[in-house]
């Protein structure tokens, strides 16, 4: 079931178009990666979901019905440009932000206590934000985003400012929230983390959505029939020998186990290709290379930019 849907969203500013007919649909209890280069229109889309700005045209649906203004209380938003009141005390501030999200003071206090204990930061409650390090403040900020137990969470670069240990902590919290049924829209430029936690992605470039799909399907779609093979045996003139089947990209013959990276030419199945190899060497390992999200991102965006120029 779709928790959130945006249909044909258009947003134009005086000088430029931020979004031209972008549609996304986010399944409940999944993590949706919203990707795109800087200035593509991601932040505008996120602000539209948060009702910070209104689209020029297009519809928004929340839990299957048109979105209402009250729905913002069921959304948690961690913007990329974020901060806290520096001179306000941590606890007071968290309480304030939770109340702005429609929580009663009592519920807010109860939830905050749980989260502060979970992150072991009870001691910070009475400290002013300016006394905290950047990472510490980010933790507080994360808590204030999720405190009201929203149905939909939007994280824009949630890991910036965290060290690897805390990044891991936050990552696990995000996965945990998903497990509990929260739907998450996750925007980042960090592709490894996208591979790691996203179920579905949409890629926006120059105000248009240019790619959308399950993450494994997307990666599968962009595979280039490239294989990494480890083998034992002699390889005299292998390119001539197998030239009709493959193109050798890399060849390393200096160790006992030799390695090569090859691209299989069109019209041959994996098994057929494997049979040919088996006749010549002893195969140690055979692995198809699926492109990383990073490769897909660069490939698709560059391709798209070329097309737009033409």
């Amino acid at each position, binding site marked *: 079931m779709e928790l959130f849907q945006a249909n044909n969203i258009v947003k134009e500013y005086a000088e430029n178009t931020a979004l031209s007919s972008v549609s996304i649909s986010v399944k409940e209890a999944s993590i949706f990666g919203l990707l795109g280069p800087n200035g593509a229109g991601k932040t505008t889309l996120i602000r539209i979901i948060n009702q910070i700005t209104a689209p020029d045209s297009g519809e928004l649906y929340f839990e299957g019905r048109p979105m209402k203004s009250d729905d913002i209380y069921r959304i948690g938003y961690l913007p990329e440009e974020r901060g806290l*009141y520096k001179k306000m005390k941590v606890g007071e501030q968290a309480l*304030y932000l939770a109340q702005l999200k429609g929580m009663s003071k009592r519920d807010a206090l109860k939830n905050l206590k749980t989260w502060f204990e979970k992150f072991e930061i009870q001691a910070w409650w009475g400290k002013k934000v300016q006394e905290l390090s950047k990472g510490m403040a980010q933790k507080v900020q994360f808590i204030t985003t999720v405190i009201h137990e929203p149905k939909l969470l939007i994280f824009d670069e949630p890991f910036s400012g965290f060290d690897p240990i805390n990044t891991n902590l936050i990552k696990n919290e995000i996965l945990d929230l998903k497990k509990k049924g929260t739907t998450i829209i996750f925007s980042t430029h960090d592709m490894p983390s996208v591979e790691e936690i996203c179920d579905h992605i949409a890629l926006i470039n120059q105000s248009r959505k240019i790619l959308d799909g399950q993450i494994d399907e997307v990666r599968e779609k962009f595979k280039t029939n490239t294989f990494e093979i480890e083998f034992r045996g002699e390889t005299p003139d292998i390119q001539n020998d197998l030239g009709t089947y493959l193109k050798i990209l890399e060849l390393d013959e200096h160790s006992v186990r030799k390695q090569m990276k090859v691209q299989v030419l069109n019209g041959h199945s994996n098994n057929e290709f494997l049979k040919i190899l088996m006749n010549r060497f002893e195969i140690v390992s055979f692995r198809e290379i699926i492109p990383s999200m990073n490769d897909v991102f660069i490939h698709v965006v560059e391709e798209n930019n070329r097309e737009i120029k033409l």
Partner: protein
Amino acid sequence: MNKSILILKREYLTRVKKKSFIITTLLIPIFMAALTVLPTYLAMMDDKEERTIAVYDPTSLILDKLESNQFTKFHYIPKQEYQELSQNFKSDKYYALLYVPENILTTNRAEMISNKQVTFDVKNMVTSRIENIIETEKRKQVVNESGIPDLEKKLAATKTSITVDTIKLGEKGEAKKSSTEIAMAIGYLAGFLIYMFVFIYGTMVMRGVMEEKSNRIVEVIISSVKPFQLLFGKIVGIGLVGLTQIAIWMILGFGITSGVTAFMGHGSSEAVAQAQNIMSSQAAGQIAQAAPAQSNVTMEIIQMIGNLNLPLIIFSLFFYFVGGFILYASLQGAIGSAVDSDEDAQQMMLPVMMPLIFSIIILFAVAKNPEGPLAFWASIIPFTSPVIMMVRIPFGVPAWQLILSMVLLIGTIFGCIWMAGKIYRTGILMYGKKVNFKEIVKWLFYKN
């Protein structure tokens, strides 16, 4: 609206709980009181040093007429001693040497010799006494020469001091004793108070908006509340901080004033007693007459303040206070949202605050001529009316002018809030862009 109240509460409480707020709120009235009391107190404590002044008077005009007082004594010396002293004034015995030349009646000059510069008080005292004596002497001569009987008494009777009582006719024709000076003082004070309040707290709104923008907390907040609610809560919250401060000042001011009055009242009766000691009996008599007159004046002032339309003044003070503040605070909030740095803020603030600064410049001119065209227009135009109308009100303003001014102010406030809301909504999310007024005007026409 519920959210606006939350915001308002935060804006109010964080500011009221600030140490700097508490300190300025409490210290300024005390400081002001000290500023008025201290000089008086110090003057009253003035020198209790005992001095003896040697007097050489070959004319015998003032001989034995210079009366000594508690601290300053006069000692008449013969010619020989004078000659010694005037050559070499080194004396522990005398503070100064006063020489009354023989031709004093024509030259009107005397001389005082001393090692140290003679103090102001001593010089004043000596001068006024000699003046009195010489004046009396001259008059006596004229009277004698003229030969008109009882001339001295007749001359004394011509001494006049005129009081023009200004009487303002109320609507029902009832006569009320009024005072131009009091109307001016109250108008001036009220106008200045509004100016200060609007300036200080308007700037506070701007700073608050800038803080939220540069802290980058603003995007978090406007994902829970509408930008307008945030701006509105901030303006009202800060406005209430200002009203709180004024209220505390009024209470403290009242307390301190009554304290000071008691203190000064006690002091002044002492001063009168002292004056009676110092002055010749004739002058003392005058002062003694003046003293009860003075308390009559106080009564009259109180009565005249009572005769002003106090409810109207208080209502308008509140109205123009709040109106002026909202008008300028919304504009300042808009500026705060548009800029990234203090320098840009300063630059954009000046043209916006110009009318307010202008109104303080013309304040005195208006107080002197509250019916003139400058006063009229400045009290109708909404950007100057909060200060200028307040100056005019104690003098009495025709109802239609007051209503016109108020209606225009309210209308302009709505216009400014609408504009500010539009600018604010776009500005707070705009980073790293140097904006100018042209750019801001464009924002007014953005769809949200």
